[in-house]
């Protein structure tokens, strides 16, 4: 059995997310999935994540080190969903082997308990029937033919112009307010009482989560699975899911965390290795367009980075400002650049302001100020607060010997300063 013919190795990004083709969109994500062949009983791919995209089915192993995909165009048939009391639910598909070999029947075994199998199956059939990859192929060839982009297609709404338009808008507003709000509030009340039930149930679940795992059951897959489930449920109802030391929060946040690590690489490079968290929030959401993430989502995803092996980290300064910085960015390197700047002649005379540092270090002024403050707490700089604002000077106190205060050693920074500033009085 040569799995190379029907499974294509798929590329992963440096953070363990699948590299998507142009226009490919991820539709669903399942956890704990095996892929078998109907003809044999041993699984080909065991216990990984399965991502259904508009173009492919991608299986990623749990350590995010390798991935395989089946392009949906090679799926000849999707068999009806089989659910069994004794087995995990299975989705069976027939994959064409192309001209070289015969067709192969692959079985996708969905083991994870928190996966909504019916929904996935429905989505798989829908996506497979949609054949989205053909549309993108057409678009590609059309683009090449037309020799240039035609711009994205947007739904065209009839322009609302003139007096008729205004009147129509007014009427709409009236209708909306006039509509029996009674009904709406009644429905709202009913919904909220149900939500209240959910919350009390969820609170009890949360207590179990926070009390930690049962020592007798540690290492038991089932126990871990149910904890993961509970995290996901709490998240869908709208209750903050606790990230404990063992669990990594909801599956959604784990994937988001990896996605963000990828996204953030390019902006970081252009801003000197460090970027404000709020700037990333705006940039990422703008890039997303729809289905934006909440600030909570962003924070959780960034907090998860320390559990994964990604090249970025979240850092909190004393003032409360939070930044994302690449791990290769070292503070020591920045400090040495700052001290080099601080011993230049004009800096010895007038000191450096945050904007000077921002220009030299090529980072945002707000972050430059943070770095200068950090350098100060390390003892490299001294601050000077004057009507002109904050300025920083190189710390000369280190060079002053308490026993012999007026002695200036040769080749010390104190000497440099002395020669730079004494020239001012000439």
């Amino acid at each position, binding site marked *: 059995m040569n799995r190379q013919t029907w499974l294509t190795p798929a590329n992963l990004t440096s953070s363990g997310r699948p590299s998507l083709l142009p226009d490919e969109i991820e539709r669903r994500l399942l956890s704990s999935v095996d892929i078998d062949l109907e003809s044999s009983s041993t699984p080909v791919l065991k216990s990984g994540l399965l991502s259904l995209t508009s173009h492919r089915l991608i299986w990623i192993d749990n350590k995010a080190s390798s991935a395989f995909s089946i392009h949906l165009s090679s799926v000849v048939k999707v068999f009806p969903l089989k659910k069994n009391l004794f087995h995990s639910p299975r989705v069976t598909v027939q994959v064409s082997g192309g001209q070289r070999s015969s067709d192969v029947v692959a079985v996708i075994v969905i083991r994870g308990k928190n996966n909504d199998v019916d929904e996935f199956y429905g989505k798989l059939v829908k996506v497979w029937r949609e054949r989205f990859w053909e549309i993108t192929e057409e678009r590609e060839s059309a683009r090449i033919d037309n020799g240039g982009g035609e711009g994205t297609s947007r739904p065209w709404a009839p322009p609302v112009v003139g007096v008729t338009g205004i009147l129509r808008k007014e009427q709409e507003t009236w209708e*909306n307010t006039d509509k029996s709000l009674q009904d*709406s509030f009644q*429905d709202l009340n009913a919904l909220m009482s*149900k939500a209240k039930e959910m*919350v009390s149930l969820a609170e009890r679940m949360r207590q179990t989560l926070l009390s930690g795992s049962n020592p007798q059951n540690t290492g038991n897959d089932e126990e871990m699975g149910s904890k993961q489930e509970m995290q996901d449920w709490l998240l869908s109802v709208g209750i*903050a899911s606790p990230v404990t030391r063992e669990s990594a929060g909801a599956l959604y946040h784990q994937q988001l965390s990896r996605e963000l690590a990828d996204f953030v690489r390019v902006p970081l490079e252009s801003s000197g290795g460090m970027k404000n968290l*709020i700037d990333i929030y705006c940039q990422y959401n703008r890039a997303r367009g729809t289905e934006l993430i909440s*600030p909570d989502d962003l924070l959780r995803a960034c907090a998860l980075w320390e559990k994964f092996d990604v090249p970025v980290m979240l850092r909190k300064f004393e003032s*409360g*400002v939070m930044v994302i910085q690449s791990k290769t960015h070292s503070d020591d390197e920045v400090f040495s650049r700052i001290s080099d700047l601080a011993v230049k002649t004009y800096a010895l005379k007038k000191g450096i302001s945050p904007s000077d540092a921002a220009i030299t270090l090529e980072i945002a002024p707000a972050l430059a100020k943070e770095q200068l403050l950090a350098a100060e707490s390390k003892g490299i700089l001294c601050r000077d607060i004057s009507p002109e604002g904050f300025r920083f000077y190189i710390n000369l106190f280190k060079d002053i010997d308490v026993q012999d205060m007026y002695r200036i050693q040769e080749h010390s920074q104190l000497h440099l300063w002395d020669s730079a500033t004494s020239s001012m009085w000439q």
Partner: protein
Amino acid sequence: MRRKPGISGLKSAAAARDQFRAVGENVARVKADLMKEQLATFRSQLEDFARKHKNDIKKNPTFRSQFHEMCAKVGVDPLASNKGFWAELLGIGDFYYELGVQIVDICMLTRSDNGGLISLHNLRLLVCQKHKTGRESVTEDDCLRAISKLKILGSGFEVISVGKKKFVRSVPTELNKDHNEILELAQIQSYVTVEQVERKLSWSSGRATDALKTLLEEGLSMIDNGHVDGISRHWFPCVSTSSAVVEE
């Protein structure tokens, strides 16, 4: 249960423990199943609600804020995550997260004018201008909710009250009570003089000059020394009324 002596006693005790554990696990499993069921019912109920009222929430700000209040009472946060049912079925997430992004934009743009402090009223006006193409109206309540979510990103986004008005701070400046009182005073004429501050708030001259100096350094005020009477006026762009909002 009576304790039996000897090995048989130990064996039955062990057996009893096992039985209890099995029951415990069973109960936990039942709880999980129950939760799953409840979740499914809740989701379908929310779907029904969404089908009927999704538009109401989008178009009617009163209904929207009522919705939020009730969620808060129950203990759920519909804006907690994009992945929650609320965002998925009611589409309420995108509205607020997008609003958050717009608020950050506006604060950045106006920062050089007002030093990072903008009145909630002006902020809302600017947001509505941006939203002109959209059909939904944005209320101050909406802005407040979006900002409360932005707060956790740690860049100093906060809402402070100065007298009866609310201001949105977008830089991590510390404003103490003295500064607050000066800002309140400034709302009358958009500017204050040292003498006015001393007189109306009964402060010593040192205290007044100190506070005004800090506000100047932080960029929240601008000093005007050009009057014939020689008295400096401290102007506060952030407290100016909507006439200061620039129409594009």
